[in-house]
């Protein structure tokens, strides 16, 4: 099926994995800076300015601090699970990234390398990826819940336990709405493979003659549901009840310090990236954007990645913007919103979309 032999394939895969993880974690580090800067601006402050120009080296200083801090393990924790939990959270959030395509492909010598960890290039130059890419992301997120749940339980502390109970209830509830909101797009695209979903948005021409054929326009409601559910899945404000600091100290990671705490932090931000990537792929045409023919060839090759990154940046920005703007939900409001509003709305959206798809076919 694939044209390269196993050894090359594994080598290329390892390089891709290393590269993606490096870029992703650097991105995560700088997102924390962006968040602090933006929230500071929203609150009419400066944010970090001391380390490096405009505070640009702040993430580096934070990283050094996390690594050098004493790694405390409280006395009465369930040690195995206590150590496993942050690893699980981070590992699952990184696994989800593996199926995300960042662009078409780049040619290195005689190899065509798809810009996706799990992508495969065929002999005729066509690309394919895992048929169930989307389901893998959902699966990895649903296993990631264990990280949060176990962290709270194994810490053997009231606040942690309450935080993780909230987190698991919230994540199970909103996973439903999240999954169902994607069905509308899947009905239009007719595939679970992320690459073909993006392709089907490009081949479709234009909506009303001028709008790009992105699925956000016919699936505006689905996008709204997705966005709400995604905020809840990543435990971000206004749905950050699992770590509501005014009630629960810090929720499920109260008892964690140093690098273990940093792993939860990274997992949360990697999840934000995954959610942003998924929204870009499903609703915003993925890596496609206006062609800029005046650029030199090497930049032309990276242009899709640039458009992709720009769209993902938009979502990260939105996350931070909302964090700086909205207050936190109350817990019963959160549950009612998920089960009584988002879920029925998602089901109605599916029914209407399937009728339209069936009528057109």
């Amino acid at each position: 099926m694939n044209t390269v032999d196993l050894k090359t394939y594994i080598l290329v895969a390892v390089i891709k994995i290393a590269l993606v993880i490096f870029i992703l974690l650097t991105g995560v580090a700088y997102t924390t800076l962006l968040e602090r800067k933006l929230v500071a601006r929203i609150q009419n402050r400066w944010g970090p300015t001391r380390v490096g120009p405009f505070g640009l080296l702040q993430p580096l200083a934070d990283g050094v601090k996390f690594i050098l801090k004493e790694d405390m393990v409280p006395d009465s924790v369930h040690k195995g699970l206590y150590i496993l939990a942050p690893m699980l959270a981070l590992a699952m959030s990184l696994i989800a990234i593996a199926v995300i395509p960042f662009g078409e492909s780049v040619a290195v010598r005689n190899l065509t390398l798809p810009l996706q960890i799990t992508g495969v290039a065929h002999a005729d130059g066509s690309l394919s990826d895992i048929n169930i890419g989307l389901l893998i992301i959902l699966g990895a997120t649903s296993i990631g819940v264990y990280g949060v749940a176990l962290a709270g339980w194994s810490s053997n502390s009231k606040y942690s336990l309450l935080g993780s109970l909230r987190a698991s209830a919230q994540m199970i509830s909103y996973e439903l709405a999240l999954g169902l909101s994607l069905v509308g797009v899947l009905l239009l695209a007719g595939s679970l493979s992320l690459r073909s979903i993006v392709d089907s948005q490009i081949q479709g021409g234009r909506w009303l003659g001028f709008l790009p054929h992105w699925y956000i326009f016919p699936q505006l409601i689905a996008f709204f549901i997705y966005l709400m559910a995604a905020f809840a899945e990543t435990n971000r404000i206004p749905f950050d009840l699992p770590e509501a600091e005014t009630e629960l100290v810090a929720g499920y990671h109260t008892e964690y310090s140093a690098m273990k705490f940093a792993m939860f932090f990274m997992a949360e931000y990697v999840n934000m990236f995954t959610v942003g990537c998924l929204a870009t792929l499903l609703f915003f045409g993925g890596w496609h954007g206006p062609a800029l023919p005046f650029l030199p060839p090497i930049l032309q090759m990276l242009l899709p990645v640039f458009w992709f990154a720009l769209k993902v940046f938009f979502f990260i920005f939105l996350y931070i913007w909302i964090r700086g703007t909205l207050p936190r939900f109350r817990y019963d409001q959160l549950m009612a919103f998920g089960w009584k509003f988002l879920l029925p709305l998602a089901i109605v959206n599916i029914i209407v979309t399937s009728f339209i798809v069936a009528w057109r076919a």
Partner: protein
Amino acid sequence: MVHQILFIIFGLICVAGAINLLVQRHPINSALSLVVVMSSLALIYLLLGAEFVAAIQVIVYAGAIMVLFVFVIMLLNAGAEERTKGSHIALLMGVPAVTVVACVVGWIMVSQRHEFGEVGISPTNFGKTEAIAQLLFKDFLLPFEITSVLILIAIMGAVVLGKKES
């Protein structure tokens, strides 16, 4: 070759998880062993080419259902269980019965091994999402719908029981 190695690895993990499930005394550890069993089963489905079933196995069983198990264990704050010595009936009847069943299954497997076909990744549509959708929503639509009604009844029953207590 790679398939066989992977199958052996995940098969071993699966069996180890299942044994660990029985050996562990704390319910949380047992529940997590079950997650391991289910995830490695999903990977074995994946090796057979049944990608959709594999994904659903992870999302529904390892993800949703087991998270609920863990959630309930956490909520009730169940502690480690005490070990009893075990019943004599289990020892007298159970162990011979298991041995007999294992022997019979093993004997059939060995003696009839030429009758079994080989299973590998099939080039056809087998196990793909479309194929399963065809089966569920065309060929077996009625059983599928009846099953969903059955589950709905179970949910309603749970709601009724939950209401009664409060």
